[in-house]
């Protein structure tokens, strides 16, 4: 089922809430695409030590690194290529400033501004903005024919989509004009709204901070337009036919509910969802779950084994029910990845996860071996 998505879309964006295994799934998707013969890039933003470890790297840098030879050495030959790259938020924003600044002086003024240095990479939405920008830069080149983007590790899946807009709202707001007026201090009068505002702010933070913000906006104004244009292009890229989301979720009912809401929200925004990957799903073994005793008889090993077998089965049933409900209501292809595969911290683990993504979803074929 994943093969179909890889076949149809050039860009796959892997989204979902924190702690569900987005980074591992991104790497496995990249591997699957490389196995299909594509020249593939996995772009990640996580510290991603596990991804690096899985690929046999010390770490992943801001330059695309070809890991194909390592795959071959590790016994996972691919007909295409797999490259991995780590997003450097600060560096991406700096490059945007360099590109958009009208002249060298403006560029230096921005890059050296203390507020910019504090803001870059920290302001809510800047990680996501940088991820989108980098994605768009790479997509506009012909270098890779498949691109997998591992989204930033936010707790809420929706943050990734709203973040660039939040950042843009920040730059678009009347705020900047208010600060510009303030810096001129022309026509200051006691009853003017902006003056009331600034007296309040000065009481809050002291005058120094306000001066620095004002300076920042003075220099930032010159690059706002190209910045906004870029953000708008990035948003269009999300809606193009070549792009689709792969949502990764845990298998418990509330996680599946959240994933379903996320898929609905993407759909409403005109963004395609190709798959929902239910990660770490515990397959049930029997038709009905055994009764769970109230407490464990601590004395006998057999009692404990009986209890924990029953507990695992009951959990498995709850998860399976919830997944079935999702499958029934959701158009996007649901892919179940059983819990049994263990941690993805080696090439073989990654290969296994990629296999599991590629095999179809009928429960019988994905049950624990």
């Amino acid at each position: 089922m994943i093969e179909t998505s890889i076949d149809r879309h050039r860009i796959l964006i892997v989204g979902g809430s924190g702690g569900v295994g987005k980074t591992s799934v991104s790497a496995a998707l990249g591997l699957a695409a490389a196995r299909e013969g594509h020249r593939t890039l996995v772009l990640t933003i996580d510290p991603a030590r596990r991804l690096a470890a899985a690929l046999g790297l010390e770490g992943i840098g801001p330059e695309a690194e070809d890991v194909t030879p390592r795959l071959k050495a590790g016994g996972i030959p691919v007909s295409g290529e797999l490259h991995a790259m780590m997003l450097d938020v600060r560096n991406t924003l700096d490059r945007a400033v360099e590109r958009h600044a009208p002249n060298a002086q403006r560029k230096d003024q921005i890059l050296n501004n203390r507020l910019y240095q504090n803001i870059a990479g920290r302001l809510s939405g800047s990680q996501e903005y940088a991820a989108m920008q980098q994605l768009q830069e790479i997509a506009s080149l012909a270098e890779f024919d498949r691109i997998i983007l591992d989204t930033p590790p936010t707790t809420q899946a929706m943050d990734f989509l709203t973040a660039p807009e939040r950042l843009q709202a920040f730059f678009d707001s009347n705020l900047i004009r208010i600060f510009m007026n303030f810096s001129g201090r022309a026509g200051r009068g006691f009853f003017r709204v902006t003056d009331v505002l600034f007296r309040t702010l000065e009481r809050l933070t002291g005058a120094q901070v306000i001066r620095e913000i004002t300076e920042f906006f003075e220099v930032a104004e010159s690059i706002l337009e190209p910045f906004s244009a870029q953000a708008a292009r990035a948003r269009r890229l999300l809606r193009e036919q070549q792009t689709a989301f792969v949502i990764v979720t845990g298998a418990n009912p509330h996680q599946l509910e959240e994933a379903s809401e996320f898929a609905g929200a993407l759909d409403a925004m005109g963004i395609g969802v190709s798959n929902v990957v239910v990660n770490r799903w515990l397959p049930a073994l029997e038709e009905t779950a055994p009764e769970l005793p109230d407490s464990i008889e601590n004395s006998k090993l057999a009692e404990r084994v009986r209890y924990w077998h029953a507990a695992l089965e009951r959990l498995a049933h709850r998860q399976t029910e919830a997944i079935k409900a999702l499958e029934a209501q959701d158009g996007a292809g649901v892919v179940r990845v059983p819990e049994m595969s263990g941690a993805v911290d080696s090439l073989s683990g990654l290969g296994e996860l990629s296999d599991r993504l590629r095999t179809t979803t009928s429960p019988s074929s994905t049950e624990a071996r």
Partner: protein
Amino acid sequence: MPPLCQPVRGRVNPLSDELFEPELGAVFDRRFLFVTGKGGVGKSLISAALAARAADRGERTLWVEMSESPRGGHFFTGFKPRYQLAPVRDSLWGMNLRVQPAIEEYLAVAFKIPFVTRLIARNTLFQVLTGALPGLDSLIPLGKIWYELGRRRGGKPYWDRVVLDAPSTGHALAMLRFPQAAQDIVKSGNVADRAREIETILGDRSGTGLVAVTTLDELPVDETCELLERVHDETPYRFEAIVCNEVLPDIGQAEKPRYHEWLAGNPDDELDDSLEGAGDKARSHLAWLERRRCSQQARLRRLSANEVPMFHAPWIPAADEAELLGAMIDVLKDQR
């Protein structure tokens, strides 16, 4: 089948046996609990259980979430988290401390000029200030906590206990660093005063307990170690306890060799019977559980190097959040 438990590499902390004692340290002696952790590790669950446990003992308790999509309604049936305090159950109140209404309230109280309040709140001015002063967006919510901690009724504190489900690690670090950083940047003004007050609260080890929640997976353990190290290096504050969530059961216990042999495929009539015919697949589920437990144990040792008391919250095989919470409250009942 690979060996179930790999030998543990690296130095084992000599204190580790003591630290492995599953205990919450002095957490329940602290009136204000600041609970943080990586996203997805069960931070909300643990903070809600701590709060509900305190309330069940009759303490007047406030549980505070700080989330765009609060979980309170999943944990407590019928409860709708909002900025306004609302009763959750006996002795327990809850709120969702969002930055925006906190700012509006703060400005209205501090400056008594609601018009400006609205103006500031409506546009994104506050984001600018936050950019200039990282952590400011947490300061004002903490100011609300400070206010609640200071409330009194009939000569006694209004709340016996306040439990904050704080933001996840990165944001929490900015929050904890802020009182210091703010005083370096902002010498005067209301923010500087407020920063000093917050610093007093966070620095009061007899009244405030910082709690880190983690699962024993690789990335959360890495992130927790980093958080503890950075809080230690960059702030004057110290963690009271690490709560390890989803700690898997030691099914083998004293009979581990027998259990492991059976998991590895050796027949054992009594244990085979206990599966009631579910057979090899059931055994492979249990073997998976045991393998994960072993890798958890290795990471426990890594965490113990932080020399902070560690509490083991067991893995609860439930999928429903209210059920999870109920079971977790039971677990905490044995703690003082």
